[in-house]
């Protein structure tokens, strides 16, 4: 009995921790989740303008959506499962505007992330971008095909 109680408390604690976690890897609700972090201030990078493009026939980039990161540096709803079909995508982050709004002149004009998505079934994509005025890093965490 005691063991079961401890185990349930442990599970509840885990659930609480993952809800509060600043970085929810493999977000299950949204097919594409972008998170941007400011590595100078150790904070989310909020209000970063982000554009999502898809490669159209003929090789041109077609703009699908244009949004800003929220106060947590997150962009959960750039696309929907219906819209996010197999293809080549580009995320364009206007990082220069972000740094300029803080009074800094950055090295990069913007940060592009180009990737192929959903070519083996629907997956969930978490794209993390870590920024500083003279550097950026991006990592992708991709789930196995879902449903």
């Amino acid at each position, binding site marked *: 009995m005691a063991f079961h109680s401890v185990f349930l408390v442990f599970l509840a604690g885990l659930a609480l921790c993952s809800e509060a976690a600043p970085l929810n890897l493999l977000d299950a609700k949204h097919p594409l989740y972008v998170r941007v972090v400011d590595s100078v201030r150790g904070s989310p990078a909020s209000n970063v303008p982000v554009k999502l493009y898809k490669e159209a026939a003929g090789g041109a980039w077609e703009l699908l959506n244009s949004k800003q990161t929220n106060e947590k540096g997150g962009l959960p709803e750039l696309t929907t499962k219906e819209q996010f079909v197999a293809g*080549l995508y580009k995320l364009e982050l206007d990082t*220069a505007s972000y740094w300029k709004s803080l009074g800094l*002149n*950055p*090295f*990069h*004009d*913007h940060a*592009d*992330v*180009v*990737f*192929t998505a959903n070519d083996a079934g629907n997956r969930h994509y978490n794209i993390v971008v870590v920024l500083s005025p*003279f*550097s*950026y*890093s*991006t*990592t*992708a*965490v*991709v789930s196995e095909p879902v449903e």
Partner: protein
Amino acid sequence: QAEGMPEVGKGTLTTHVLNTASGLPAAGLVVRLAQLQEPGTQWKELAQRHTDADGRCQPLLAPGQAKAGTYKLHFETAEYWQGLGHTSFYPFVEVVFIITDPAQKLHVPLLISPYSYTTYRGS
């Protein structure tokens, strides 16, 4: 930063590509430099190189060739990973940066792994 390299003149642009999964330089990777033809949106290719066994290549801009403006380095990373028998997330990596002082020597390295990359302005 450029240990072991001969002295390069002012105003050159160099890169260095490192495979962080293996901890080795990324050799044989194709790099292209283009310049934005402002005020439009067209890019003009200026140079193409491929990295040597040390992950480096000859400077992409000759001394005196750099002008203030917006430039793009295009790295053929997927081709590189395929050559090693790996899949990778990105078909290529592009780094778009601004040259404000054409006399300044610029070093723009790239660290790559199959699902991540990092780029910075070095020295």
